[in-house]
C-alpha cells in the first residue's frame, strides 16, 4: 500500500517542473499541491512540501505522561518519530486501525511528527481560483489548525496548518 502512495509522491516530484511551467500561465496558476486524506467523511489536506512520506501503521510504542492524542513513538528507519492521532487531536472518536489507516509523516524544519489518518486520498494541484476566502475564525478552537479552505469540484477540502498542528505552544493551550 505505502508503495502506491510513495509512487504518487514520486510522480508529483516529476511533475514539479511542469508545475513551474504552469505558473507562467496567469490564467491557471498552480500555487501548490496538496496531499488529501480522509478523517471520517471530511477531506483534509496537507501541503506537499511539508510531507515527508506516507507509511503503514507500524507497532506503536506508547509513551506515558503525554496527552491522549499522542499515541506513542514509532521507528522509521532508525529514526524515532512521535505519532499523533488526527481523530483524537480534533476531538473526534478514535476508530480501530484498518488496512486503509496510515501515517503521514510531516515535518516543519526540526520537528517530525507522524499523523494517523483514516486513509489517504489523492494529490491535487491547487490554483488561485480554488481557494475560498477563509472566514475569520481566529480564536475559534476548532478551526485554528485550518490554513485555507479549497472549493473543488468534488467537494470542500480543508488544508491543515502543519506548523500550528505540531507547534508546542498550540499543544500547550490545548491541554
Amino acid at each position, binding site marked *: 500500500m505505502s508503495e502506491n502512495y510513495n509512487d504518487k509522491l514520486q510522480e508529483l516530484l516529476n511533475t514539479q517542473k511542469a508545475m513551474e511551467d504552469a505558473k507562467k500561465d496567469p490564467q491557471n496558476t498552480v500555487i501548490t499541491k496538496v496531499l488529501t486524506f480522509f478523517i471520517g467523511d471530511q477531506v483534509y489536506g496537507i501541503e506537499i512540501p511539508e510531507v515527508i512520506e506516507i507509511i503503514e501503521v*507500524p*507497532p506503536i*510504542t*506508547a*509513551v*506515558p*505522561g*503525554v*496527552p491522549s492524542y*499522542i499515541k506513542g*513513538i*514509532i*521507528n522509521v528507519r*532508525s529514526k*524515532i*518519530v*512521535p505519532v499523533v492521532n488526527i481523530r483524537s487531536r480534533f476531538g473526534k472518536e478514535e476508530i480501530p486501525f484498518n488496512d486503509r489507516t496510515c501515517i503521514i509523516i510531516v515535518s516543519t524544519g*526540526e*520537528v*517530525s*511528527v507522524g499523523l494517523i489518518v483514516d486513509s489517504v486520498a489523492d494529490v491535487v494541484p491547487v490554483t488561485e481560483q480554488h481557494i475560498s476566502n477563509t472566514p475569520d475564525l481566529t480564536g475559534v478552537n476548532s478551526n485554528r489548525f485550518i490554513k485555507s479552505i479549497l472549493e473543488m469540484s468534488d467537494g470542500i477540502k480543508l488544508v491543515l496548518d502543519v506548523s500550528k498542528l*505540531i507547534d*508546542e505552544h498550540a*499543544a*500547550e493551550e490545548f491541554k
Partner: protein
Amino acid sequence: MAKVEPGMESMLEMYIFETNTLLEQLDEILLRTEDANVFSQEDINEIFRIMHTIKGSSAMMGFENLQHLAHKGEDMFFVIREKPEIAKDAHFVYELIFEVSDLYKAEIEYIQNTGDDDYTPTDFSETFHKLEEATEKLKAMENGEAPSASASAPAASAPAPTPAAEEGSMTVRVFFEDGCKMENLRAFLLLTKIKDEAEVISCTPPDVESNADTAKDIIENGFLVTFKGFDGNNDAVIKTIEGAVNVESYEIIDTPAAPAEEKPAETAPTAPAAPVEKAPVQEKAPAPAAAPAPTPVAKPEAPKAAVAKAQDDIKKANGGQKQSLISVNLSKLDTLHDIVGEIITTESMVIANPDLEGLELESFSKAARQLRKLTDELQDTVMSIRMVPLAGVFQKMGRIVRDMKIKLGKEAELVLEGETTEVDKSIVDNLNDPLMHLVRNCMDHGIEDDVNTRIAAGKPEKGTVKLSARHSAGEVIITVSDDGAGINCAKVLEKAKKNGILTKPENEYTTKEIQNMILLPGFSTNDTVTEYSGRGVGMDVVRSNIEQCGGTLNVESEEGKGSSFIIRIPLTLAIVEGMKLKVGDTIFTVPISSIKESLMVANNQLLHDTKQGEMIMIRGMCYPILRLHEKFNMPTEVTKLEDGILLLVDVGGKNVCLFADKLIGEQPVVVKPFPKYLSQYNIKAQGLSGCTVMGDGTISLIIDVNNLIS
C-alpha cells in the same frame, strides 16, 4: 563585509579553535601569577608566545582589530618583561589583560556566530587607549624605580636593511607558491618557525609582519632571510624551510655581500632578534643609542642568551608529544559514534535473529561471541576517544570566582578536586554553562556577605567554593559546594508560597523537598537582582541543561554550614547494558548497573502499609514495590505479584522492587533521546530516560530508576 578572504574560510575553524585554546592558557597563567603576585620569566615568555601567536594568526586571517589588540598587549608585556617586579601589585595590568582576553573571546564568538555579510569588526580603540596608558604607566614606574634598567634593554634602532654577515650564518632566498596570497604573512610565519631552529640575523623585506605591501616585493624578489643555526647547524633550518607551507622553492646564497659586512658595524651590531619586535624597541632606543660604541662586543651576548632561552621555552611549551596528537573535527567523531551505535543494534539484530530460534549452532555462537567481544572493544575505544578531562571547564571557573570576588567584595577561594576525571566531550560542552551558574550562585548567595557572620559561625574568613568530580558506578558525580550560609528553608518556603509553586500543605514538605524547590522554574531567593544571579530563571535552566545531557541535579544543604549542588551524569552517554522487561505490550529496558537482583515472590512475603502500599520482605529487609503497569498506566493481564517478576533496583542507596510481567533478556542498547516534539511533556520526570530501537525494529523505553523512585 566578508569576514575572511575567499579561500581562507577553511582556516577559520582552526583559527577559532587555536585562539580559544591560547586564550584559556593565558587566563590560566594570569590567574596563577596573580595569586603568586609575581611574573616569572617563563610566565612572561609564555604570555608573549601566546600574544604573538594570536597576533600572527589574526593577521593571517585578516582580523586587523584583533591583531592590533594583541600587539598592544605585547607592548605592555614588553615593559614588564624588562622588569617583572614592576608588575607586582599592579592590579590594573591584570584587569586590563583579562579585559583583552574577554574582548577576544567575545569577538571570536561574534565571528563564529555571524554571517559573512553581517560581520563588522568591533572597534577596540578604547581598550587600545587603556593599554597604551598602562604601558606608559609601567614605563614610568620602570624608569622611576630603576632609571638604569633601560640600559640593559636590547639595543636596536631600525632593523638592518641588508643581510648582516656573521660567521656560520647562511642566507636563503625563499619563493612562495604562485597565488598563495598574503606572502608577507607566510614569510612571517616562516620566520617564526626558523626562530625555533636558529638565530635570525636579518630578513628582507624586514617589516613583513605589519606591512602588507611587502607581499608584492616577496613575490618579485623572494623573501631573504639570514640566520645562524644554534650549534652552527643550518641543516635543520633548511629542512624547516623545505617543510613550510606554500614554499615553492628556495635558494641558498652562500657568501654575504661585502658591503653588508660594513654596514652592521656602523648601525647596530647588537640587533640580533630585533626585526620582528621593532615598535617597542624603538621607543626605548635613546638610552643605548647614546652609548652604542663602547660596548659593541659585550652586549650581543645578553640578548642572544635571552633569545635562546625563550626559544627553549617555546620548544618546551610545544611539548615532545606533538606528533602523536591530532585534532579531529567533533562531527566526525559523532558520526563514528553513531555508526558504532548502529553496528551494535545490527549485531543484536543478527545474533538474536528470530530465524535462529531453537537452532543449535555451535560455530555460529562462537563467531557471535567473538564479534561481540570486538564490538565491545570498538565501543570502548570510540568512547575513550571522546573523553576529555574536566580540567578545562573547571579552570574557567577560577576566572569567575576571581571576578566575583572583586565585584562582590567577598573573600573566597576556589578549590578544585578530581579535575583529571574524564567525561564525554559533549558533556563537557554542556557543563560549562550550568557550572558557571552554580559557581556564581555559590559566590553570590552561598558565601556570606558579611565576614563577621562567618567569624561568628566559627568559619575561616575566607570562603571556599569547591568543585569536585569523581567516577562512581558508571556515572560522573560533579559537586559544586560552598561553606557559606546554606539554604534557609523558611525563606525558601515563604518564597515558594508567594510564587504559588506549592502543591501540597506547607507542613508536609520535607527539608529535602524544600531545598530542591530552588530548582523549580521561576524561583529566586535573592531579593534583589544582581549582575550575576537572581533573575529567577537560573536554577531551572541549570537543571534542564544538565538533564539535556542525561544527568540529574540535586541540592544538599545544611543551614549555616553550606550547600552542595550534586550533578550526576551517566558516563557512557549513548550505550547502556540493559535488561529488557515486558509490561503489557511494552518493552522496557532497565540499565543493568542499577539492578541488584530479580526474584519471584510468594504471597506470604508481602506486606501492606497503612496507605495500601505494597512491600516485600527479602532476607529481613523490607522494600517497597512499584508496579510499572500502574506507574505508566499500561494495560496488562499480569496483575498478581506471584505471576510476574520483581526486580530489585538500587539507586544511591534507595532500594525499590519494580514489578513487571516478565524478563526478556539482556542486551546492550543505544540510547536515543525522545523526539523533540515530546520534550514539552517532561517524560524524564516520569522516570524514562530515553528510548532505543531493538533488534526487531520495535522501540523499547529506557527506565531511569533514579527519577522513577523520586
